[in-house]
């Protein structure tokens, strides 16, 4: 028995109620009930923890205070003398900042279009939230489905706040993205005849979630990375961009890079720049633990914003309903939505289901927070927090022994490492900071308001409105990575080598910071989180 003491007693209630819950359908919420639980319990609706930023092109925009802190920050280059007129260290057509799924997709398309392409990335190539995405990728590629049906799910899930053209691009390109990945030799779950195995995700009206076991993102990432290397595209690791360079006409003309190991600054000149740096979970908004990669520190948002790219829905953060809560080594780690997609249900201290298991993420998270706060029916943990059960053993009871080993090998392994056999014992979960719904505003080619500056992947905003559905993020990085790569390559072929590279936009940003009296010790981008205890 992995759960000892009081937890050991409480787990018995889950076991007692389990047989009576098999095959029983718990009702979905009405639209009014959803709105009510969101407004009362979703962290985004809480007035505390947000402020309006005082500087930059989206001055006045509402943001979590932790994000506002990194936005209202001085450049890393504030006290650094850089000669921008020297021969650059790198000179390319397309500079891609970030080595996750969006960056890799952009690189492959830019290269295919004939552009000289460079990927510069802060950590290793493939160190990204892409690698950690478990559940799957959506695409309307079944006969009972269509891009239009997918579109309705996307905008309904996104609270009708999506930029329509971006949501359209997402769903229309989706089957093309899956086909592209299939042709690249991505090992999707398939039937004998080649048909993709697809299941539901929260908020989907059709079974359109494609998966590669529960390593979906890892499988996509390692395939794309392998192909980037096959094509001979230059990749520079442990080299973060700390500032975008603009040219004499105000177009993006490259970036200042920072070699994390030698601590040297390098100049990359480029005709177009694609920011693909991902999200910001490591800012730990509202003190939440996060499922995000170590590198998710909002770097691209910060430098893109200083260069003049606008934000959209910067105050919209996704809390994944099922973050690990116990044992403590699993705190914040993602329990894939595929677990619920297959039929595992959340339960309170009495072993009772209290919410339909496949509401959209925002609603499901809010319902769990309500159960633990207002209703006081959470499971108290020895670590001092409350959580709810996620009944995984019901999957084995419903679909037969071996289901979890086959469908959720990563989850089984992860919990087993810390003493919980999820085939026999339920998991303990609580919402975890998972995704930045908003970001820098792009058009359907990934272009920002700054000429020559693109954003793709989680750093971009507008696609998902204010709540992204499961499986639309892996899709987003492929779709908009490819679009940005293609467009940037085409633009680069008609663009001369940029001249007069400068950081005047940073100087102007500093003047605004001075006027607003920003704290002197705030310097960004953050690059690495600070977890040292001493």
């Amino acid at each position, binding site marked *: 028995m*992995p*759960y*000892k003491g009081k937890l050991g007693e409480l787990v018995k209630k889950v076991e007692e109620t389990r047989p009576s819950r098999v095959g029983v359908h718990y009702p979905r919420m009405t639209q009014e009930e959803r709105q009510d639980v969101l407004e009362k319990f979703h962290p985004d609706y809480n007035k505390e923890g947000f402020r309006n930023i005082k500087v930059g092109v989206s001055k006045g925009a509402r943001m979590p205070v932790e994000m506002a802190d990194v936005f209202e920050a001085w450049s890393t280059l504030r006290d650094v003398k850089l000669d921008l007129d020297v021969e650059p260290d790198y000179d390319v057509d397309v500079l891609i900042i970030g080595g996750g799924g969006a960056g890799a997709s952009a690189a492959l398309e830019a290269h295919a279009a004939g552009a000289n392409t460079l990927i510069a990335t802060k*950590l290793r190539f493939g*160190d990204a939230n892409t*690698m*950690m995405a*478990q559940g799957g990728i959506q695409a*309307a*590629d*079944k*006969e009972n489905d*269509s*891009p*239009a049906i997918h*579109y*309705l*799910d996307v*905008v*309904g899930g996104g609270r*009708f706040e999506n930029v329509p*053209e971006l949501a*359209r691009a997402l769903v*229309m390109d989706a*089957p*093309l993205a*899956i*086909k592209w990945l299939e*042709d690249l*030799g991505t*090992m*999707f779950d398939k039937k004998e005849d*080649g*048909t*993709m195995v697809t299941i539901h995700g929260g908020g989907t*009206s059709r079974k359109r979630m494609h998966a590669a*076991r529960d*390593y979906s993102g*890892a499988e996509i990432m390692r*395939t794309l990375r*392998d*192909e980037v*290397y*096959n094509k001979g595209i230059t990749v520079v690791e*442990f080299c973060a961009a700390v500032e975008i360079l603009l040219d004499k006409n105000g177009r993006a003309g490259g970036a200042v890079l920072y070699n994390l*190991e030698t601590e040297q600054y390098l100049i990359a000149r480029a005709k177009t720049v694609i920011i693909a740096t991902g999200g910001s979970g490591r800012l730990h908004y509202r003190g939440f633990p996060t499922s995000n*990669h*170590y*590198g998710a520190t909002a770097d691209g948002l910060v430098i893109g914003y200083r260069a003049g790219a606008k934000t959209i829905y910067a105050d919209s953060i996704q809390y994944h309903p099922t973050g690990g809560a116990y044992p403590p080594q699993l705190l914040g*780690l*993602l329990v894939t939505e595929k677990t619920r997609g297959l039929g595992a249900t959340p339960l309170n201290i009495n072993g009772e289901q209290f919410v339909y298991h496949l509401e959209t993420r925002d609603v499901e998270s809010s319902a769990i927070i309500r159960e633990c706060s207002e209703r006081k029916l959470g499971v108290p943990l*020895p670590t001092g927090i409350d959580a709810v059960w996620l009944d995984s053993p019901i999957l084995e009871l419903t679909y037969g022994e071996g289901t979890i080993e086959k469908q959720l090998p*990563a989850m089984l*392994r992860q919990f087993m490492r810390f*003493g919980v056999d999820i085939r026999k014992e339920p998991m303990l979960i609580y919402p975890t900071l998972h995704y930045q719904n908003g970001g820098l505003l792009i058009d359907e080619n990934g272009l920002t308001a700054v000429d020559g500056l693109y954003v793709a992947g989680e750093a971009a905003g507008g696609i998902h409105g204010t709540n992204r559905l499961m499986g639309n993020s892996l899709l987003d990085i492929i779709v908009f990575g490819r679009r940005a790569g293609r467009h940037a390559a085409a633009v680069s072929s008609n663009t001369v080598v940029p001249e007069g590279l400068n950081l005047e936009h940073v100087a102007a940003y500093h003047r605004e910071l001075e006027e607003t009296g920003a704290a002197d010790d705030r310097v960004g981008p953050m690059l690495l989180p*600070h*977890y*040292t*205890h*001493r």
Partner: protein
Amino acid sequence: MSDEIKMVDIFLMGKRYTVPDTLTIMDAMEYAGYQLKRGCGCRAGFCGACATVYRMAGDFELKVGLACQTKVEDGMYLAQIPFFPGRKATFDLEEIKPSTAHFAQLYPEVFRCLGCSSCTKACPQDIDVMQYIAYIQRGDFEKAADISFDCLMCGLCVSRCPANIVHYNAALTARRLYSRYIAKPDAFLAERARAIEAGECDADIDQLINSDQEKLQELYNNRDIE
């Protein structure tokens, strides 16, 4: 799973630090004062950045694990492998086929496996690495793809191989060959992709885009769910 926190001594590259025993190796390094650059990635067991070799005080056996997925123990001597310079053969997926002949050109060392099983013993994912190398040698790419699937490409197998095989890259090539040539393509996916490129799906979606929010809301709330 005791809930009482005890302090234990661990040795990071030979230096002693006293840390709570509830921590993973990665958290313990941070507790000790390291700000990690290499040797830290997803922190969730998916990326293979934090391959770690360790030994317990008084023991000679070298053990392996992922720093983010392994709890510290008293008397643990450890070091991380920040990078492994394993070779990756480059190839054009459209030119090669799932045959041992093609594979031997890319990774000839795969066929020099000594059968020592050091790779399997070194795998933090408990993959039978030597077995999938054997499947590749036999040209059984389906089985090689299947059992190698959970590989995180951390490089520990390669670090222990007396034949200099780069197992994780060989396995990735095997999976791509299997997925591209042995698994059948999804027929309807190709048809849907064609229809989209031919503009056959435009009318439906444009009708939605041109609807006002009230109409969209009504359609959404009344949509049929499979």
